[in-house]
């Protein structure tokens, strides 16, 4: 295999990405969520998503010849294998059957004379042999007769990889966060397997958030950020702090992070105290969070996707099953009961704007006034001694107009339906809804997800002002560290379902990067 070089131009999520990969080389690809790693790999693999969204610019060269994959099948033929984060295995089949699925060695039978090759029988012996071959090539211990449904996670991962390398033409293997689900021991085995493959002349692109693994197996490292390749490093000469800094650091253009002099003194009063919280939210499991939120502060919660940061507010607000203790101003709040939290003057702006945050088919008035009406009996006229609680349309319109002005929500009128608004304006409606509750403590989850830069700045400014001027304690969860550093007093980083550290916002982003990848400062050095 000669040099593989790829160039993509004109795609907003990926800008001028160039790199080459030699035969047998192991390339580490690191970057924050949304840096463009997955898009890059999807292009390489010819995924449908890419075609459906208008294709890509630039060229992909294999052995010096340009290739354009119309589908993943073409990519497979060209010798590119990919192991995705999610397993695609048949649980009721054995490892061997899964490895050679749809490529089974066949025997001709009597029936195939009549019905053609579809009636061929499987050659079980050959199947077994080929599967074992692939497993040996990988260099791991895996029982080919074990059912996938009975396997530990690590073995499933090995089955997936074995399937890819059992293809005879395989030359390049893409592994998308293969170690994320593995225990340390299994991860070690996998790393060894990667080295094995590389020695056999198979190139590997290895995507991971665990920077130590990059140092262990890779020949070179590419750091991506905002759709660009920031640098290409020699794995032997770099270090975890260097990679972490390159990963999270970005040009200072959209507002600046807090500096030391802007720090505010932290109040002595603890308003919210979380003890041993666990939350069963799919994809964002919280295992054991202990956290104290001080009166009037703006606390950020950051961390990589899937580590559990989003699970924290969703668990406290009763949207997903949770356990542990949450105390607000010293009194315990019942979990798994959204009403109890709202009654205790907590409010939550969900990350799932369209799913949880809005009544898409209803007017802006309804969206903003609804929770306050239901929880606090606001915007209601009472008749017959409170027996009839009549919606006060005029009061609802007043409050809606007030927030439309205050937050500069772009809409035709307060009667417009929520689904007709743009993402940024919808987000402002969600904030207005929470503000209308006049909460003591406000959870805001991913407030800038999926909205443009201008709206982002406005939303963050509104939150910052609400915190500074009204003295409301805000806990903001965001995947974007820089955003947190602009608004927050302190930032807690969540790793693997627990808080791995809390630092003042003025701390250099490099330190947060290290916390995100699950290392304390000491270990990194």
């Amino acid at each position: 295999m000669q040099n593989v070089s790829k160039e993509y131009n004109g795609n907003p999520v990926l800008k001028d990405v160039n790199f080459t990969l030699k035969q047998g080389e192991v390339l580490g690809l690191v970057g924050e969520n949304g840096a463009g790693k997955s898009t890059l790999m999807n292009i390489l693999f010819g995924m449908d998503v890419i075609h459906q969204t208008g294709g890509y610019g630039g060229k992909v060269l294999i052995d010096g010849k340009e290739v354009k994959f119309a589908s993943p099948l073409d990519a497979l033929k060209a010798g590119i294998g990919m192991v995705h984060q999610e397993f695609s295995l048949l649980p009721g089949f054995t490892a061997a059957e899964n490895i050679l699925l749809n490529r089974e060695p066949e025997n001709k039978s009597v029936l195939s004379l009549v019905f053609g090759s579809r009636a061929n029988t499987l050659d079980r012996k050959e199947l077994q042999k080929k599967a074992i071959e692939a497993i040996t090539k990988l260099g791991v211990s895996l029982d080919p007769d074990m059912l996938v449904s009975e396997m530990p996670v690590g073995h499933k991962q090995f089955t997936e990889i074995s399937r890819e390398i059992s293809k005879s033409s395989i030359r390049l293997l893409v592994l998308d966060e293969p170690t994320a689900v593995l225990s340390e021991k299994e991860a070690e085995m996998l790393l060894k397997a990667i080295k094995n493959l590389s020695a056999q002349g198979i190139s590997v692109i290895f995507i991971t958030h665990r920077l130590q693994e990059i140092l262990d197996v890779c020949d070179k490292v590419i750091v991506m950020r905002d759709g660009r390749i920031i640098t290409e490093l020699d794995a032997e000469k770099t270090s975890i702090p260097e990679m972490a800094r390159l990963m999270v650091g970005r040009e200072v253009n959209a507002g600046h992070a807090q500096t030391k002099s802007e720090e505010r003194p932290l109040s002595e009063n603890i308003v919210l105290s979380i003890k041993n919280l666990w939350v069963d939210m799919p994809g964002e499991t919280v295992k054991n969070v202990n956290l104290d939120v001080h009166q009037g502060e703006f606390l950020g919660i950051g961390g990589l996707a899937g580590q559990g940061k989003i699970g924290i507010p969703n668990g406290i607000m009763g949207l997903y099953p949770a356990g542990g203790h949450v105390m607000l101003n010293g009194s315990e709040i019942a979990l798994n009961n959204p009403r109890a939290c709202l009654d205790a003057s907590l409010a939550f702006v969900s990350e799932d704007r369209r799913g949880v945050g809005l009544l898409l088919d209803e007017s802006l008035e309804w969206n903003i006034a609804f929770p306050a009406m239901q929880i606090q009996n606001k915007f209601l006229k009472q008749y017959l001694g409170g027996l009839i609680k009549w919606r006060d349309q005029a009061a609802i319109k007043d409050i809606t107009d007030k927030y439309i002005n205050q937050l500069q929500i772009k809409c035709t009128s307060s009667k417009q339906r929520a689904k007709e608004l743009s993402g940024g304006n919808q987000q402002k409606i969600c904030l207005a809804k929470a503000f209308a509750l006049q909460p003591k403590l406000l959870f805001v989850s991913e407030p800038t997800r999926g909205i443009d830069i201008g709206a982002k700045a406005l939303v963050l400014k509104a939150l910052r002002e609400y915190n500074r001027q009204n003295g409301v304690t805000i806990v903001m969860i965001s995947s974007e560290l820089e955003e947190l550093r602009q608004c927050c007093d302190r930032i807690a980083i969540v790793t693997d379902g627990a808080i791995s550290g809390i630092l003042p916002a003025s701390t250099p982003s490099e330190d947060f990067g290290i916390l995100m990848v699950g290392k304390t400062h000491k270990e990194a050095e």
Partner: protein
Amino acid sequence: MMEKVKELLRSFGLPRLIIAGFLLLLFIIAPFVGIRVGASVSDTLARFGMNSIMVLAMVPMIHSGCGLNFGLPLGIISGLLGATLSIETGVTGPLSFFLAILYSTPFAIILGWGYGKLLNRVKGSEMMIATYVGFSSVAFMSIMWLILPYKSPTMVWGYSGSGLRTTISTDGFYSHVLKDFLQINIGTLSISLGEILFFAIFAFIIWAFLHTKTGTAMTAVGSNPVFARASGINVDKQRTLSVIMSTWLGALGILCYQQGYGFIQLYQGPMYMAMPAVSAILIGGASVNKASIANVIIGTILYQGIVTMTPSVMNNLIHTDMSEVLRIIVSNGMILYALTRKSGASR
């Protein structure tokens, strides 16, 4: 100007326009084939009075996101229980109508509560389950009508002295109590203000309810249950309440129907009663999760107008009886249309 007309047309909806146009055409043809328009209009209004409350019974469940109340037979059965119990007591005249409403209420609440609990367990496929709730309850009650120890000679089979008859006359009890109340006669045209007033009262109550705190919560549950839950609303409770309301309105609706029709129909009677009501509210412009009182009124007039006018006009035109065929095409076609539109019109 053109834009405004277009906008108006869009908000009124093409299918409603076609049906309204068709109905208008029927009224224009009618005099030429020897049908008196006055009588036709009276007929349509009489049917409106009989059926409108059953159409109204669709509204609460649509608002809470439970879909169309295909389980209307359950409400009707509550109404039938109330009606038969009222006659069993032997009370006659208008009082028997109020007794029937009174007796059917506890049944409607209990059956509606159970029905609501069931629908809360099958979120996403309420309408299919509701259809079978209706069918199976009709089958079950067919047995019960025979077994229940009714004694009133107006109701039981003459030859055996036990078991209720398939059709029971409400004559002497509450036949035409609303129909004859405040009736206006102008030539061939007769309008029963009593029935219309009765409907107006309940339509107002439902309209008012939807403007209260609880009504708002119910609509929000239907619009986005996750939003409602995150706002501290007990989604299941709201849904159950809406089902109880729908069931009770169904009971009231059938009593209203019986007083206008003059007969109580037991056994297989309630089996397909849900279809015309569902069809009417859909013609009125409601979707699976949005409905208003206006939809009820417009829909019932259009649907009942078609049902009254088509047979008489068509029979006179082509001298064949195809009224039933047309009625079935209109009502089932409308349901089919509305259900396929579900994804487009919903959230």
